[in-house]
């Protein structure tokens, strides 16, 4: 009996020792650094969504472009402060350097003669001509970034709608296969129905772009990383135009993910993870220090375990790859309260969330429909009844979001009106109640209202908060209408099947046009994206003028558009999103701005 007790005690002490040793030896992130580079330059992090597509012509999601921006280069790139700097092009064109003609319609772009694809193929003007023509023909979600180029619509019309892809990837009968077949003939010839007439090469290193009309936002849109302006290698796409982007690069490969960036795809399993390796003797700068990037694909529910794994040094960072919104408030607080607090990076991201009113869809609209004084008054009542600062502190604890008080365009971006400058950001329950009494004295118009949203994340607590605010400050009960199917929710919202709905926009590039073209007015209506249905001739006329002007002249016009939206009470501003990263202190150069994660070629691992 005594022996057994001794054994038990011994075992317990042993276990305690193991646990203590394990606990003491587990902190990878908090170790000290000597400033010297580590011998292993491998960055390891998780992502929480398998890739949709990394094909720049078809890419849609941030989780995809955050990765593919390191493989595909554009003619220009955004630096960490969102300034446009040369990449494959030697300069940023302007009227002063002769890159843009005096009428603003012709761009002459000199290409870096040293530029190469990461399989060693030389990158010439014909590759740029091919890449941009292909993006136009594919008519993907960001094709409109090239829409100001002369011949854009004609090329899309030629690419048209070929037979559906029923005979498998790579077949010539597929949509993509048809485009490849046509471009293979037309790009060497320099013209053809699939090549927009505004694109040409004056010599192998000079790309010329002619616009159909003035465009103050084009350069910014063409620079958008991982998207339609990125340069791809025709030879790597032709034999498998559908799934080429999933195929690792091997010597001499003809269907693989080849770009001109500092990294290439070394292994790929959409459900497990992928590896990227640095291109040796890469032509661009800064030269990559990291030799390998290992990305694990996890379920979002894994983030708690991943956070522990990061604390134990298994991961170098969490939040990269478009995942900066995944850490929950308790997790953020737990990092803040630990010895890793200095390794938490909180960064405002370029996303605004608001409530849209159904203004322009009579068949489904409610009391907020149209431009009558009553409709506007009721919209204003529901706006003033919401305490936006209260929402940011109650729902986001001022950590996961900030109150949207400076207009729709997120703080830090061009077009931001300034703190507390948006009249719709006010909270005035007294005036809200008075407006409600004036325009709906019997409560008949505002009975049976619904607030529609897609369930999950912050959307549920935000909806509950709004419901409470309207009940408390207006005495109006609004039924919550959550949708667990985001796709069905977006479908309904785009077609105006709602009365009040959660709405939002994540900016693509730092230009107000990205917001005002895509969300309201004639352009959004034509694209089937005008969720609130708001459109009026004044807005459209100012929008047309603003889009054509250089930014300095366009900005006051865009501000006028902001004013129209607030005067007409088109939305209820809610919050600006904030991203949260944990980055081990030995990871130098990693971080994020409002738009994207800093490129992998900025990062190095210090010895730790």
């Amino acid at each position, binding site marked *: 009996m005594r022996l057994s007790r001794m054994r038990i005690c011994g075992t317990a002490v042993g276990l305690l020792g193991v646990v203590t040793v394990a606990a003491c030896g587990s902190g990878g992130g908090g170790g000290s650094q000597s400033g010297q580079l580590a011998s292993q330059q491998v960055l390891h992090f998780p992502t929480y969504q398998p890739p949709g597509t990394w094909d720049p012509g078809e890419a849609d999601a941030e989780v995809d472009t955050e990765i593919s921006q390191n493989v595909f280069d554009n003619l220009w790139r955004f630096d960490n402060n969102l300034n446009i700097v040369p990449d494959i092009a030697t300069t940023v064109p302007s009227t002063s350097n002769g890159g843009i003609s005096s009428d603003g319609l012709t761009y002459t772009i000199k290409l870096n003669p040293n530029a190469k694809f990461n399989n060693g193929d030389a990158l010439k003007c014909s590759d740029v001509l091919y890449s941009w023509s292909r993006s136009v023909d594919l008519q993907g979600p960001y094709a409109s970034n090239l829409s100001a180029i002369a011949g854009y619509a004609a090329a899309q019309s030629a690419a048209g709608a070929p037979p559906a892809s029923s005979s498998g990837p790579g077949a010539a009968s597929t949509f993509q296969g048809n485009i490849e077949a046509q471009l293979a003939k037309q790009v060497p010839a320099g013209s053809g129905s699939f090549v927009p007439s505004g694109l040409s090469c004056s010599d192998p290193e000079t790309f010329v772009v002619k616009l159909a009309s003035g465009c103050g936002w084009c350069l910014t849109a063409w620079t958008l990383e991982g998207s339609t302006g990125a340069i791809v290698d025709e030879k790597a796409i032709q034999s498998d135009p559908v799934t080429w982007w999933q195929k690792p690069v091997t010597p001499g490969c003809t269907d693989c993910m080849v770009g001109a960036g500092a990294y290439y795809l070394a292994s790929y399993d959409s459900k497990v993870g992928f590896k990227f390796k640095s291109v040796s003797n890469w032509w661009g700068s800064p030269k990559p220090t990291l030799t390998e990037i290992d990305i694990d694909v996890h379920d979002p529910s894994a983030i708690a375990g991943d956070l*522990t794994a990061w604390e134990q040094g298994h991961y170098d960072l969490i939040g990269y790859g478009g995942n900066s919104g995944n850490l929950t408030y308790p997790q953020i607080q737990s990092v803040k309260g630990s010895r890793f607090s200095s390794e938490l990076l909180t960064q405002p991201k370029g996303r605004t969330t608001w409530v849209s009113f159904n203004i322009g869809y009579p068949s489904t609209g409610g009391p907020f429909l149209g431009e009558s004084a009553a409709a506007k008054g009721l919209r204003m009542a529901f706006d003033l009844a919401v305490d936006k600062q209260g929402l940011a502190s109650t729902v986001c604890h001022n950590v996961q979001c900030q109150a949207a008080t400076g207009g729709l365009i997120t703080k830090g971006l061009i077009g931001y009106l300034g703190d507390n400058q948006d009249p719709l950001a006010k909270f005035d329950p007294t005036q809200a109640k008075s407006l409600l009494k004036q325009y709906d004295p019997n409560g008949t118009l505002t009975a049976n209202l619904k607030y529609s949203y897609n369930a999950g994340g912050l959307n549920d607590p935000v909806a509950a908060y709004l419901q409470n605010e309207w009940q408390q400050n207006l005495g109006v009960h609004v039924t919550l209408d959550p949708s667990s199917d985001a796709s069905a929710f*977006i479908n309904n919202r785009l077609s105006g099947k709602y009365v009040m709905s959660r709405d939002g926009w994540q900016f693509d590039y730092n230009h107000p046009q990205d917001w005002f073209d895509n969300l309201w007015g004639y352009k959004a209506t034509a694209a089937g994206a005008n969720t609130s249905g708001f459109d009026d001739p004044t807005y459209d006329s100012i929008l047309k003028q603003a889009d054509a002007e250089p930014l300095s002249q366009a900005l006051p016009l865009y501000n006028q558009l902001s004013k129209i939206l607030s005067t007409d009470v088109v939305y209820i501003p809610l919050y600006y999103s904030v991203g949260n990263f944990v980055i081990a202190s030995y990871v130098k150069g990693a971080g994020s701005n409002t738009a994207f994660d800093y490129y992998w070629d900025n990062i190095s691992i210090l010895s730790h």
Partner: protein
Amino acid sequence: MTRGTLVYIVQRAVLIAFTVLVVSFGVFYVVHSLPGNAFISDRLHGRALQLLLHQYGLDQPIIIQYWNWLKGAIHGDLGISLVTRGAAVTPIVMQELSVSAMVGGAALVFTVGLGLLFGVLAAIRQNTWVDYLFTTFAVIGYSVPSFVIGSLGILVFAQWLNTVTSGAVYYPLPWQGTYGGGGISTLISISLPAISIGLYTSGQITRITRASMLEVTQQDYIRTARAKGLRARVITIRHALRNALVPVMSIMPSTVLGILTGVLVIENIYGIPGLGKEFVESIFTHDYNLTVGVFTIYTVLIGVANLAVDLLYAVVDPRIRY
């Protein structure tokens, strides 16, 4: 194998094929009829969306789409994913099947092993504390649903233990299947999901084994064996248990079904990247071919598992002939 058995297998195979056809069409029709699709987003709508739907043949009548899918499925091609665009579904499903099989297999071993052991021990120690202990275990086992056990497991191992040991010892969630390095870590990782799935059915097996063993041990041939001076262990294992297994076998089809459906629930609780998790995710993301592919594989698995159990009857009980 007798001619009758062969005929029986062929008949059942035809029935399985017919069931797969009906089920796959039903699922295909339902998922394609749901509002929304895999592509739509704040940026992807209007003409670009219509074009993409056209590219993937999703603007064709459902019956044509099903026919195209079926032609491929017969050749082992379950189509392409709409979420990871262009990726072949068959390798994805096969990879996830291997993960689910590992979890389900572990649960089956746990269920049968523990259930038989506890049932036999409870029977041979009838009305002792051993009997009461295992009978109580059985009652608790089949009274508590697997998702409750799963959630409790997460609470204890991932939350409490993680907090107590400051992250030094924690349950690695979610289990990454075979991708987590294999070996002992996989075995540790797999145990909790397997127990969560198997506890319910192991409770059932414990009770049935106990009742069956008690009945068999009263039989004359067991008394004879004892009179001949055979050792208790030999009597229990060789003579009593074999006959006591027949009623246990009768609940095996429902056990296997329970485990297959249990995997579906547990994979989602533990974030295990298997068929069950994919099934739920693919419905929410409208990845039609994956949903239909996973459902079809499930149908085949259930059909084959039922057939295998029916054939096992004949092995355990020689009186059964096909």
